């Protein structure tokens, strides 16, 4: 292996693994301080996340959300855009999904409902990202600022929609009525029963396959299409891209729409897959979590799937931990996520000089 490929593998594999291990070590120290046996905690966490079918179902269910938002951030990142607005795009995408479902006749077949609800999420997510993209491309407003502001706008808009328009009469919670049953995505445990396997119930639904499908699409799009090439060229150097006949402004618009559309699919998993109604704050934390997932996954679909799984484990295993151990509160889970983001995001290249010295030293010419 020559030095460049070694460095490539160090960046892609060894550093993320080291960073995650460091985060776990830091968590273990906190556990010791608050009087929890870290080995026992790790066992509970892993058992809760993988040890039984229901736990695994929840893990994959949470991971599905993170795949969508992770892909969204990664697409934008490959074009040099930092999309902080996954939170708002996911929220509005869910609104699009719900509006389309309520617009369709309840007796329509599931074969119409499924693509229509996916399209609703894609469309509304994309539209919500289009405005910041336009402002970035043609008016020079920085995308980080505008997308984060759009998160607040989304939140206010959804409060209005849920409280005044969609709320089911007589319900005190801001929730819509149930979606028509034909529109519900099948649960994996129901599907498996049809094939003769009995599985424990969990919220895991076919949205996981939708997420994996879009992971493949993103991979093809970015590395195997002309658009993907223009997108990466714009990300690497938008001035230079112009000389290759690429129009960076157009690329910004298109990229952000794709990014927003992907984030908009969170509602598919959460609402059509599990809650079966649109509720307040269903998107909460997944948009921002997606940034960490994309960072850890090095903006590559395979890395994102693995990182999303890790976050799914933290969500489900962390809940299990708070359930089993009375001296661990739900806030510990947030601390663990924070440590992972700290070591994988902010300090991602901390070990790089040492690892490169150890594994890929500069060869002296003999």
């Amino acid at each position: 292996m020559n030095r460049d490929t070694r460095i490539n593998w160090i960046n892609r594999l060894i550093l993320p693994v080291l960073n995650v291990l460091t985060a776990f070590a830091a968590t273990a120290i906190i556990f010791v301080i608050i009087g929890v046996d870290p080995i026992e905690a790790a066992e509970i966490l892993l058992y809760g996340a993988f040890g039984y079918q229901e736990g695994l179902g929840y893990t994959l269910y949470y991971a599905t959300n993170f795949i969508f938002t992770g892909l969204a951030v990664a697409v934008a990142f490959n074009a040099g855009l930092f999309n902080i607005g996954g939170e708002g795009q996911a929220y509005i995408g869910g609104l699009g999904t719900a509006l389309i479902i309520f617009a369709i006749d309840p007796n329509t077949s599931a074969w119409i409902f499924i693509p229509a609800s996916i399209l609703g999420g894609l469309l509304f997510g994309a539209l919500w990202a289009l405005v910041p993209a336009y402002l970035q491309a043609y008016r020079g407003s920085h995308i980080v600022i505008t997308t984060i502001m759009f998160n607040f706008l989304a939140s206010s808009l959804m409060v209005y929609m849920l409280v005044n328009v969609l709320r089911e009469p007589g319900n005190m919670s801001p929730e819509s009525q149930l979606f028509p049953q034909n529109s519900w995505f099948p649960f994996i445990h129901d599907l498996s029963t049809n094939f003769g396997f009995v599985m424990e119930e969990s919220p895991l639904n076919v949205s996981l396959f939708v997420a994996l499908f879009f992971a493949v699409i993103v991979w093809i799009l970015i590395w195997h299409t002309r658009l993907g090439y223009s997108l990466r060229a714009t990300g690497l150097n938008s001035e230079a891209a112009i000389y290759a006949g690429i129009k960076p402004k157009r690329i910004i618009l298109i990229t952000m729409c794709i990014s927003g559309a992907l984030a908009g699919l969170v509602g598919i998993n959460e609402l059509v897959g599990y809650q079966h109604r649109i509720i307040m704050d269903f998107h909460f934390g997944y948009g921002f979590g997606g940034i960490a997932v994309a960072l850890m996954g090095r903006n590559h679909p395979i890395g994102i799937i693995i990182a999303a799984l890790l976050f799914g484990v933290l969500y489900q295993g962390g809940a299990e931990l708070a359930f089993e151990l009375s001296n661990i509160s739900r806030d510990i889970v947030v601390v663990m996520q924070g440590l992972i983001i700290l070591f994988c995001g902010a300090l991602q290249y901390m070990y790089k000089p040492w690892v490169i010295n150890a594994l890929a030293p500069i060869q002296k010419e003999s």
Partner: protein
Amino acid sequence: MKYTLLGKVIKQSGLLLVAGSMLLGVTTLQAEIKPAVVYDTAGKFDKSFNEAVFRNGVLKFKADTGIRVTEIEPTNSTQREQSLKKLAKRGHGPIVAVGFSMASAIESAAKAYPDTHFTIIDMVVGLPNVQSVVFKEHEGSFLVGVLAAMKSETGVVGFVGGMDIPLIRRFACGYEQGAKYQNNNIEILQNMTGSTGAAWNNPTKGGELTRSQIEAGADVVYAAAGGTGIGVYQAAADLGKYAIGVDSNQNYMQPGTMLTSMVKRVGDASYNSWQAGLDGNWKAGFQALGLAEGGVDWALDEHNRELVTAAMEARVNDVKAKIIAGDITVHDYMSDNTCAAPQGINFSN
């Protein structure tokens, strides 16, 4: 030989059976319940609604019976249902769910585990294994409204609600009736903090609303807003005006400016559900706890003793007795979603 062997086996297994059933009998006698509670997403230390369940329910039950109550604080809507089902699966019961937002989660968990006993507070879920406990907040609010009107020198009193839902309007409506019962010319300023769950935990905005109400002349402000109330009491204390707490007895939070608290005994309701589970007489169904049942009340303790004169105390207790006796009927906002002019109340004093 064969027969005797067989006989022996039968005899022995019979003995085993007897011994087994005796053991079983003993264990059922000693069987302990595994009580549990699932808090609202606001968390158990909100100094108000959820904390009342913790302090007057969970801690008290543990102290009285030695039985630990398993507590869950869900972080998102998925986990509400997940934790209810997991508790049920592990054989917990009775399981108390705190707050109206748990309704859809309770509905699906109770259907999935029809043998588990669930209790929901502040909401009605009509299933054969669900006990729904609601409170007549309008009655308690009526009392503190009377007190507020007596204490007010400006003739203006305030109300700060949390999330704008019929339940909180019920508080406001009871308060308004009580204040007007005491002083027909009183002006009541009302503000809601927001229309989402975040409104339960926004002390900053609670403080701002209180300041603006005080600027508009109010000198007693009643908060029915969960954690948002902390900001209301602080603002009232800063400006030297009075505040009224809610759910828990919050008089201790700003001693000297907390006029009273409208106590809602959610802790007792949870305690009773577990106690009934322990005694084996837990019943599903619907309970509405008002002044007569001791479900709501006003709080008088060492922190507000000096603020409440003997005349005020006598007056409030007189009104309380009249409500319990049925001489005063407090209109319930949620019965028709309006706060119409109260019927049958004599405004003359």
